[in-house]
């Protein structure tokens, strides 16, 4: 592996680490900012791959990620977060406990999903196929974030993390045509706007008797 591929590998690993940072965080605003940083790292990976493979679509993808994910999505999330302190900081959340559960969940999921299926998928754009572990890890990280948190914004961040993992997965396996990727980005952006609208009305989610059974 030449030096640029090694850097890509390290940046991708950092993306996965940022997922753990979001999971272990109690400050909603900081979580939203980390999501922006995570998206920026994905854009960097895309640019570097575009540079190595001399493929312009990776540059378009990188620019789209920066405009839509790094700026617009982060802007919407930061602006729609309710301003009261009790919402911004999840004091009752046992983050250490959640992180341990998260690690167990992810290790088991990755072991099952990767070892029985994705291990046979050879990446087209990267020399080492085990790089697929990182997007998969981020995907399950996003799922766990949705399941483990009650705050609307935290669940939205889990969803965005899932979407980020798919960009990363696509980038390493074989990027789908850019027109489709753009449509996916726009869809997600509108969903985030709808998420934000609902988060104003319903910032926290609890079990409801009417919705049981």
């Amino acid at each position, binding site marked *: 592996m030449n030096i640029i591929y090694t850097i890509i590998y390290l940046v991708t690993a950092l993306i996965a680490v940022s997922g753990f940072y979001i999971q272990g965080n109690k400050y909603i605003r900081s979580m939203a900012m980390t999501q922006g940083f995570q998206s920026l790292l994905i854009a960097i990976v895309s640019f570097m791959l575009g540079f190595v493979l001399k493929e312009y679509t990776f540059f378009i993808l990188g620019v789209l990620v920066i405009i839509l994910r790094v700026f617009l999505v982060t802007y919407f999330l930061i602006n729609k977060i309710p301003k009261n302190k009790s919402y911004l900081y999840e004091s009752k959340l046992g983050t250490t406990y959640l992180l341990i559960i998260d690690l167990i969940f992810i290790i088991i999921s990755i072991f099952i999903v990767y070892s029985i*299926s*994705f291990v*046979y*998928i050879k990446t*087209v754009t990267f020399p080492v196929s085990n790089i697929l572990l990182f997007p998969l890890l981020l995907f399950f990280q*996003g*799922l766990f974030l*949705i399941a483990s948190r009650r705050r*609307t914004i935290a*669940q939205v961040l*889990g*969803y965005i993390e*899932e*979407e980020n993992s*798919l960009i990363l*997965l*696509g980038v390493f*396996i*074989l990027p*789908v*045509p850019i027109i*489709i990727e753009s*449509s*996916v980005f726009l*869809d*997600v952006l*509108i*969903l985030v706007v*709808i*998420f934000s*609208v*609902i988060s104003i*009305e*319903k910032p926290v*989610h609890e079990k*409801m008797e*009417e*919705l049981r*059974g």
Partner: protein
Amino acid sequence: MIINILILIIPLIASIFYKKIKTSSIIVSIIEMFLLILLYFSKTYNGFFFVDNISFIFILMVDSIYLLSLLYSKKYVHSIKNKGISENFYYLLMNFFYVSMVFALMVNNYGFMWVGIETTTISSALLLITEKSDTSLEATWRYIIIVSAGVTFAFISVILIYYSFHTLTVTAIIYSKAKDTIAVRLAVGIALVGFGTKVGVFPMHTWLPDAHSEAPAPVSAMFSGVLLPVALYVLYRIYEIFPMRELFVWAGTVSVLFAALFLGYQKNYKRMFAYSTMENMNIALIGLSTFTYIGLIGALLLLLSHSFGKAGAFYSSGNIYKMSDTKDINSIKGLINNKMSSASLLLSSFAVTGTPPYGTFFGEFLILYSVFSIHFYAQFIIIVLSLFLAFVSINFNVSKMIFKGKSDYSENNVNTLIPLIAAIISIAVGVIFLVVYNEIL
């Protein structure tokens, strides 16, 4: 090609007349029915759009339920006291919802199909809070987060299809030589989980009863009657790439079993009909998954008849809710005094439980026949028992609501004609099938 574009554009043009959108939407839905006739004679098998006999039946369902729901909405939505969205915005979203479903059905590209399905979530999410309450907000949230997370998973399937075939064109892939690789198997399996979330496959079905019970009646009818079948259509198109019969039939069978069990203890009549949708969608999934001609005909017949029957059931539920202000089965008594409402409720509950001569009965019969013919005996027995359980649960509850006790509900402020028409069309589907296709039986 031009007709396909017109079908997609005309509802959006109606949205330009925002202040008169209620009337313009109904006019547009009638125009769409005419365009559908033209579409039948100019089906497209190549290019950007792909409309064959299978997709045509799905488009027919979407168009019909869209028209019925708009007509029913006129009185229903207007009378909602605490609206979460304005009446005009409701019709705007209905138009977008319709266009996104038809787009997913007509497009000849797996990537755009995914976009279409995701867009149905976007356009329909806010429709759920038309009748605004804390519960409907929570149901909306669950709908968006669970379905979006599931459909996101389905995108992995799209990536893997592209990786395997270097194209996403549906016709190019399904008419090419079958490929048996790990990537293709993985793509089809992941699609079952991803799109299966929207179809209502167990255990990803949890959004379904919440969304159906809290949405206003015409939206529940759209969800149950056509949204889930549209997701099923996309799943079927992926399944055609590499039919994993055993996996899909088992997934459907387990889902039907659980739906039947859940039906046994429902107290809310809208949730009861939602679980009935889960049951019917999974029976259709089983029919499609058998990958036989009889199974396919059975599934299409079931879906077509079910769309009208279930629309009728939800419209009737909407009327009952307006008259009684409760969704509790045990609190509803003596509906027999309200002739039209009780007739539509009874007829539509027969329709969704597969009573002869409804199309659902023939559909289920053909599906069971095809399951038996491919020697899936264990699944056959489980499905038959589940169907019996579901039939008893639903009809027992509906009979209780109609025949037990006395009431003084007034039908003055509700639309009783549309639910009855929908239920009667469901019978007509069965009768027409019996006359036209009797050689299959």
